[in-house]
């Protein structure tokens, strides 16, 4: 087993890991404030990829006017649109369920997942449609010495890492972030201090959704855009979340990255286990540290 192979697969693993990290980060932010597991998080990732694809390839055909939304524009517009959907879901649906068992929030978002998946399965091939809008400037290849690595994939890794750590910095080290954390710790008290907690909740949900949408745009040029792309991912991300625990933002990011790497390396040493290794790690964590690696015992 040459070192080149290990490095190459590790880099590909990191490539997957940044998507795990972005999604589990979004889940953790939402969970922190709302105590809800957003099953539709995967569907929002899928939605992000589809909006980018439609904006690039189909809008012109559908509307009959000459319009095309390029990759860079998508990178900004798509998270906003997906975030807006998040606002609608939180305001009109989730909000009515806060009094009930949290299980209902999970079931509601599962229903939303089915709706979104079904809608896109009607119009698009379930095995994926390629996203042709990858910018020319990123279409090359970087020679890393041990392998040729597509420039775009490196770009996706770097952007995702920046977004993850910026989110962490914002929440842990800014004034607004500290208010958010106060809202998590004690909503009533925070409200008493004159902060608009319901608005904060809405915006947080929208932010988490937007993050998933952004991940979708970044993923579109790498993987084909498919109605099921989020469903396959979200279950792994659930396991990532159980392993990391919901204790900290950094925990979500680090466990996402680490598990992507581990999955990548498993492909080198024992490929058949690559799809299950994360779930087995989850079992181990449950046995020895039920609250997760970064989680706090409640």
């Amino acid at each position, binding site marked *: 087993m040459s070192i080149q192979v290990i490095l190459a697969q590790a880099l590909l693993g990191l490539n997957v890991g940044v998507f795990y990290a972005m999604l589990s980060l979004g889940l953790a932010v939402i969970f922190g404030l709302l105590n809800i597991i957003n099953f539709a998080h995967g569907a929002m990732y899928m939605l992000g990829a589809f909006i980018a694809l439609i904006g690039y390839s189909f809008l012109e055909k559908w509307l009959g006017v000459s319009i095309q939304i390029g990759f860079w524009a998508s990178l900004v517009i798509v998270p906003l649109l997906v975030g807006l959907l998040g606002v609608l879901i939180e305001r009109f649906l989730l909000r009515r369920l806060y009094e009930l068992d949290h299980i209902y929030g999970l079931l509601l978002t599962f229903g939303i997942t089915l709706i979104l998946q079904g809608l896109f399965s009607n119009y698009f091939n379930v095995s994926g449609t390629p996203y042709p809008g990858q910018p020319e400037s990123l279409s090359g290849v970087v020679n890393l010495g041990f392998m040729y690595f597509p420039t775009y994939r490196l770009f996706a890794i770097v952007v995702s890492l920046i977004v993850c750590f910026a989110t962490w910095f914002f929440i842990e080290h800014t004034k607004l972030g500290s208010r958010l954390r106060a809202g998590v710790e004690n909503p009533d008290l925070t409200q008493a201090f004159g902060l608009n907690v319901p608005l904060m909740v809405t915006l947080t949900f929208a932010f988490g959704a937007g993050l998933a949408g952004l991940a979708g745009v970044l993923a579109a040029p790498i993987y084909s855009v498919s109605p099921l792309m989020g469903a396959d991912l979200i279950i792994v991300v659930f396991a990532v979340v159980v392993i990391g625990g919901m204790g900290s933002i950094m925990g979500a990011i680090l466990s996402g990255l680490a598990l992507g790497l581990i999955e990548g390396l498993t492909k080198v040493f024992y490929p058949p286990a690559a799809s299950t290794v994360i779930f087995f790690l*989850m079992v181990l964590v449950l046995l020895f540290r039920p609250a997760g690696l970064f989680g706090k015992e409640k």
Partner: protein
Amino acid sequence: MTNRILFMLMLIGGLTAPLFAYPVFVMDLLCFALFACAFNLLLGYAGLLSFGHAAFFGGAAYITGYVTKEWGFSPLLGILAGTGFTLVLGGIFGFLAIRRQGIYFAMVTLALAQIVYFLALQMPFTGGENGLQGIPRGELFGFIDLNHSLTMYYFVFTIFLIGFGIIYRTIHSPFGEVLQAIRENESRALSLGYDVERFKLLAFVISATLAGLAGATKAIVFQFAALTNAHWQTSGEVILMTLVGGLGTVFGPVVGAITVGALSHELSAFGSWVQVILGTIFVVCVMVFRRGIVGEVLRLVNRKKD
């Protein structure tokens, strides 16, 4: 009283169904109805949301299929083998999952079920994507030919009734009462001296075993064990059935399974719109119809009595 009427209706409906409907389709409904009842025992009566019940439904199908096809087990023995397998599997899952509560419990069961799915995909004996094909229906007690679709139907209906009976007895036993006490208020049950974890685990195992019984029977009916049954979407469907019919009601899951099954069947020409419709029903149920069909009916009946 209401229960007795409903039971008679179910019995008559079940006995006469093959006269007016395609028997294989009704058998499919029966398997799902039993599956939903088993699931309801856990969510409706113990308050535990498992998102991984497809692992039992699908897992039992593989075991039953394998032992009848490769080892020549009789169908009854095959079904027992598959069910026995899920008894053990349920024990393992339960042991791991009840360490976490609420939504964590749901995520853990989902992730565990995903392991079973990938094992089913990769282990040689399951046939991977090909599935386990050509499972013989064989003969019951060595002389009743199950290839005859009416015989097969009444065999399946009998299994359904047995499974349903076990669940009914469990719910109405002291054990069932304790479960509901735990669901209502876990810390109170704990302070009353109940070993909450053991009760939960036992409920999980019973539920898993009966879900396995349903899956094992389905394998014999369709002569097939396939990945679809073990997929998480099947776990989602059984939740929907239970929710539509009425969570925590004895007959709700049966009504739910028939409703959802018949609906998907009638709408199948619309392709993926079925999924959109099911998703919408899910949302509607969660938002405004949390009692489900049977739950609403019972509420109306009870109000009249008052």
